[in-house]
């Protein structure tokens, strides 16, 4: 799609986007190659002597050991898998639900719109975390339950965002024309409306991933994570309960940094995408600093800003 290519090119011109992408790719790489990168199996039962418990970093255990004598670095590496799985799957779920609801509500309007937006209001008003805590303590702990809870509660903002976009798109002229051509509502919604909201959905999706990762960490930190898996939130939980009193910073800080690292990466990507695709955040092309300089100084920029040069071509063609 031409649109996606354009977004991609605009993205790669922005340093914040590239930094975010690199930060994310590092974590993805670590998660994918965890079995080869991790020096030890984080689940392995180890026989340790009491001196090894919460042992500080040394050349064998680069980030020291936890309160059971296991390698912190290996846990950290495997934790990336849990965080990314939860992040991407839950975000995917919530984005799919949110986009569908927003599309239908905005496009059909009337009672369906009213009903779904009241559900959204309802979910937005209830504080999310306590609701999740209640749900998980009722359902029990488990990776998929966490994903489900985050996914099922996180779609509301996407739905509102998509709906508001659809409301404006559906009034456009070519939508009536598509109807006059004989296109069905389903076809119009998928072929004409959805492609227009997709960029915003994309930006929202990236932000949703970071949101889901932080929520998973929060839940695990509060002791509601999957007990069979090592996750960053879980590490924080253990560290908070058992390591702080012994000043074992090597157990506490790494998972915290990891969470910050991946969220910052994703937020940088998401914000950059949002800047590109959200018209209200975009400045006018004449405000492109290089073009402005050229106007005042009289020296043309070495390489004209692509958006502007494209517009000029368009005008010539038209």
């Amino acid at each position: 799609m031409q649109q996606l290519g354009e977004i991609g090119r605009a993205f790669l011109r922005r340093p914040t986007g590239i930094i975010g992408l690199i930060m994310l790719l590092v974590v993805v790489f670590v998660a994918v190659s965890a079995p080869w990168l991790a020096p030890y199996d984080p689940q392995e039962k180890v026989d340790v002597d009491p001196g090894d418990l919460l042992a500080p970093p040394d050349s064998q255990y680069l980030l020291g050991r936890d309160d059971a004598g296991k390698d912190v670095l290996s846990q950290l590496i495997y934790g990336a898998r849990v965080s990314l799985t939860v992040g991407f799957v839950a975000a995917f779920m919530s984005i799919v639900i949110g986009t569908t609801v927003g599309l239908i509500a905005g496009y059909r309007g009337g009672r369906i719109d009213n009903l779904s937006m009241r559900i959204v209001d309802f979910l937005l008003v209830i504080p999310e975390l306590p609701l999740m805590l209640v749900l998980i303590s009722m359902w029990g702990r488990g990776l998929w339950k966490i994903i489900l809870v985050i996914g099922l509660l996180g779609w509301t903002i996407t739905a509102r965002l998509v709906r508001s976009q659809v409301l404006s798109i559906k009034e456009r002229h070519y939508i009536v024309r598509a109807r006059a051509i004989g296109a069905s509502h389903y076809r119009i919604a998928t072929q004409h409306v959805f492609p227009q909201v997709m960029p915003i959905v994309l930006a929202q999706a990236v932000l949703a991933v970071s949101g889901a990762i932080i929520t998973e960490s929060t839940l695990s930190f509060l002791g509601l994570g999957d007990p069979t898996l090592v996750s960053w939130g879980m590490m924080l939980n253990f560290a908070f309960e058992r390591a702080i009193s012994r000043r074992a910073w090597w157990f506490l800080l790494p998972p915290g940094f990891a969470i910050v690292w991946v969220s910052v990466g994703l937020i940088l990507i998401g914000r950059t995408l949002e800047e590109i695709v959200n018209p209200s955040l975009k400045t006018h092309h004449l405000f492109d600093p290089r073009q402005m300089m050229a106007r005042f100084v009289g020296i043309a920029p070495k390489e004209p800003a692509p958006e502007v040069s494209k517009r000029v071509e368009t005008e010539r063609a038209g």
Partner: protein
Amino acid sequence: MSVLEVRNLSIDYVREDGAALRAVEEVGFTLEKGRSLGLVGESGCGKTTAILGILRLLPAQGRIVSGEVLYKGTDLFSLSEGEMRKYRWKHISIVFQGSMNALNPVRQVGRQIADAIQLHEPANDSGQVEARVHHLLDLVGITPQRSGHYPHQYSGGMRQRAMIAMALACSPDILIADEPTTALDVMIQAQILDLLQKLQKELALSIIMVTHDLGVVAEMCDDVLVMYGGRTAEYASVDTIFNDAQHPYTRRLLQAFPDVANPSSKLASIPGYPPPLDALPRGCRFEPRCHRKRAICAEQIPALEAIRPGHYVACPFREDNDGA
């Protein structure tokens, strides 16, 4: 043989508070094969609403209150939504008002025309469809190489012609052109009108031309229906309208149009505005602005009478007859 017959069409817009506003009332006409009908009137007198009603494309607030639209004998209002979809474009297509905005900005023009073909003739393989698209673009004077371009790469006139190409994609019997030349410069207007006339001859199209430009009507149309305030004021052949108009509104409309034979004559405007839909006059819709009104005009809606075969006027106090 008539391809389209509209009888007694009335359309309401339902306001949020539930009040129904009558936008079109008891409009009817007959369209013969290969002929064109002009739908004329000031802005806001229900022309576009009437044709959207015929295609059942009214916005959500619109309600068809009564009427029949017979396409070759089939009542379009009795069809299900799915059946109606098959009639749109295949049999009746439309070039929208300001149709330069009727192209999806993020799809290639050729793709959009192909969409119309594939929706109605899914059996065609993509090679055939592409050939058709190229043929259609050629027909309206656009080089087929430009089918892969996006609408913003076209000029306004080209977009309008591309829309006409799209409207012809499924070889319809009837083409509705809603202000096809508004917002185009005079040269392009002439091109578009020539194009429509040429296509009408070649393809035996029946055309409904919605416009407020009487020059377009004189050039293009065989019959004229003058609407005012949602009702038919006068309905006759184009010669009759231009030479023997009987309704005071039609007269005034013609006087408001420059005369080539006498360019220095002052143009007469009609004081006032068409009535707002929520405050329609009780009697004749034109009564408040009429220069020939009588007391009864404010009380009673005048019926549409045939004063001779093929000439219908909704005014008892006609220009040639001061009434009883």
